[in-house]
């Protein structure tokens, strides 16, 4: 049967997500949030999720809905601060000890995901040496500099926002939408892409930014979710 990765709806694309999954969610700086998929995941409501998302609180992302719905056990991110002086729902859960948080420097966050998808279990980075964020981690000197050992991140599901797809799942991204998409898609065993449109013709190879071999399911959404 010829390959066709289209799925009719976000709900169908996420029907088999299990409790306890580690879920990657793309998006940074206001671009590339898979909000249709995030909302469908909230409705599907698997529990005890670990979210791997750059910001737990970005105002354009619906990530907070998963947290507020009580589906999330742990968040791995580089930004977890609410925007107002009052505590955000996430910060309240954190204060009450009801959610676990791992805060990583953003480049370590990105590289740990990249390593996860590239068969590298851990790697040394100079970032964070001598700071609170790497306390307790192994430090090793190479040449005249100290480096800290960081472990790769792998997961069960990646929710990726892209611009267009073809039937093979090849993806293109608009501008800064690309951010964590390629790395997250390599590190998850199930990759679901939310795209503006699916092209019936194959995307020319020089325009493909993420090869479709990494992408399992594609959902076309006409409009962005709120």
């Amino acid at each position: 049967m010829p390959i066709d990765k289209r799925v009719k709806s976000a709900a169908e694309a996420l029907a088999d997500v299990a409790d306890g999954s580690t879920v990657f969610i793309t998006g940074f700086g206001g671009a590339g949030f898979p909000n249709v998929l995030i909302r469908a995941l909230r409705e599907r409501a698997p529990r005890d999720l670990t979210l791997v998302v750059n910001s737990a609180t970005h105002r354009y992302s619906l990530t907070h809905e998963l947290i507020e719905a009580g589906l999330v056990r742990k968040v791995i991110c580089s930004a977890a601060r609410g925007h107002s002086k009052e505590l955000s729902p996430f910060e309240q859960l954190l204060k009450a000890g009801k959610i676990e948080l791992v805060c990583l420097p953003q480049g370590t966050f990105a590289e740990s995901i990249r390593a996860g998808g590239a068969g590298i279990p851990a790697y040394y980075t100079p970032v964070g040496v001598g700071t609170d964020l790497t306390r307790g981690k192994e430090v090793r000197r190479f040449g005249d500099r100290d480096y800290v050992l960081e472990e790769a991140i792998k997961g069960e599901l990646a929710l990726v926002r892209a611009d267009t797809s073809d039937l093979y799942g090849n993806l293109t991204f608009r501008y800064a939408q690309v951010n964590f998409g390629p790395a997250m898609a390599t590190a998850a065993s199930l990759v679901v892409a939310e795209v503006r449109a699916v092209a019936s013709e194959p995307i020319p190879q020089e325009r493909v930014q993420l090869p479709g071999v990494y992408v399992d399911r594609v959902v076309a959404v006409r409009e962005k979710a709120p």
Partner: protein
Amino acid sequence: MKPLNRRQMAWRAAQDIDSGLLVNLGIGMPVHAADFLRPEVDVFIQAENGVIGAGPLAAADKADPDLVDASSRRITLRPGASIVDSAWSFAMIRGGHIDITILGAFEVAANGDLANWDMRVRDKGPLVGGAMDLAACARAVWVIMEHNTRKGDPRLLERCTLPLTAVRCVKRVFTDLAVVDVTPSGFVVRDILDGLTRAQLQERTGAPLSFAPDCRVLAPPPLPDAE
């Protein structure tokens, strides 16, 4: 003479940026430096989200929600710009390909330690973003910050009191009173505000200052303060 306002501090930092460099500008005062580059200077500005060649902010009718910088500002691209993904963007930062990063800060120590990410606000979630990557790995780390806190405490210190972003990384600090280099022998003043005495500057600084032989007067053009 009055201390420099925020735009004037950004102006002063911009005067030290040379042509052909790859520069990353942090949130807040540093991003304004892009507005004050010397006219002959041609640089690429990198944003952590992967934009290489960020241009000015987009006009409201041209703004594109997918074309943003690391501060979620809707921007334009300069000619020759490109965009890479986040893993590549930070590989670029860690790999030492950023010539200069200009960051905001709370404190800088005489050994170059930087504290700019955690003010220890009770119960608020942490937000580190790309600050540690830039501070640890850019070839030159510059800081723009007010010389003193609102309470009048010095921000240039023997040792930082707030959690560190990176150790021994800062090379130059642009404040509202002075331009200060961080050297193996501590803080060296390169520019001092017109009308301020060396003793007055020392009084407002939390670590010993020495003064460059060619220490200049800091006299910015009049500029309206940033919002």
